[in-house]
């Protein structure tokens, strides 16, 4: 469980201070606390992943629309 948290911390967007505290205290945290933190970081990871995908789609839509407009203008 601890190693999964350490992996999730690498990409997490929480502050460096919070990351340091978790890494340091992990060996002495109660199992229930570790579970809560792991769940929260896992949830963050999957939601941020989905939002990254959404952002990519927004960028793609923008690029396609601009491309189309440029194509139409160049054809005139």
């Amino acid at each position, binding site marked *: 469980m601890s190693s999964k948290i350490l992996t999730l911390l690498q990409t997490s967007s929480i502050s460096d*201070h919070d990351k340091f505290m978790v890494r340091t205290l992990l060996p002495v945290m109660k199992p229930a606390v570790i579970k809560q933190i792991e769940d929260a*970081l896992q949830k963050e990871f999957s939601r941020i992943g989905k*939002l990254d995908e959404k952002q990519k789609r*927004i*960028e793609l839509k*923008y690029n396609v629309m601009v491309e189309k407009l440029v194509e139409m203008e160049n054809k005139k």
Partner: protein
Amino acid sequence: MIKFAVDKVKSWFSENKGELPKIGGSRFENALKKAKESKDVGFFKKIFIFAKTFLTESGEVKKEKEAVKGEASKTVEQGVDATMADARKLINLENVKDEKDRQFYDEVLAMGVTSYEGMDQAHQVSASTALTKIDQVAEGKKPENFTFEESASLIAVGIKTLKQLKTKYPKKADFKAALDRIVKISDSSSYPFKKLLNSDTLKLFSVSSDEEGLKFLNAFGIQASAGDLFGSGDATKVKDLMTGLGKSPIQNKEGIVDFMKKHVFPTTDKRDITHVVGILNEMITGDGDKLSSDKLTDLTFYLHDNDYDHLITALVGKSNTSVAKLGQLAA
């Protein structure tokens, strides 16, 4: 009209340059040129609308990301708070107003917590009793000197914390700056370093009896023998050496260094041990501040990393060194 539209779009794009995906290439440049020449205001209007839509939608995603980060941070901080509750109550940093200072001290305190809780219960109790005695000294009382177990447990917590601090600040100047910052912030806590390191507190470490002294010697592999009854055994020799360490000027420095190399700091270079012995002598015999951040930094950096674990093992047993190793994850 076209000049106005072009200038407006240009300046708006320049303002939002970092936020927008890059569009360029000769096809795009041609289209821009063509639209400008044919005074096609609609082209610029559309580009402007596309970009604004992009920024609005991206802004929403950004907001959602912030909310997700906020939720994760909240749960993580609750977990950290639960783990740090006792230590924070003991140290009490309510008077430290600067948030960065509080966070910094909290990180050092977390190292202390893992160093303490990484030991078995018996050693935790001994370290707590030692802290209670320090409190009593601060209240003007005169508690009994530390037992071997109390000294050893407290020193082990200190060494493990220093080891973690050295992992976080591997450069000597940074380490010294961190120690200075700890000393400064601790003035506003329940455990100012001045209180921990004053001469009355350090007296608690004095060995109270031969029996307690022998426990220290045993920890480093020295056994009392029949010869000690006649003043010629190993324990007696070490006792004489340690008496010399507390003299000004130091007596039999070479003998003390040889002893330290053999029993206490087996991996540290002999030349560095000579410096360490000099610092220890100054600490024992010197006036004023017994242990400044300069001295503590020198001690920490003269010692080989392997000897931190050797010391902890000697003082509190091998099973209690584990957190010091796990603490390296914090780097």
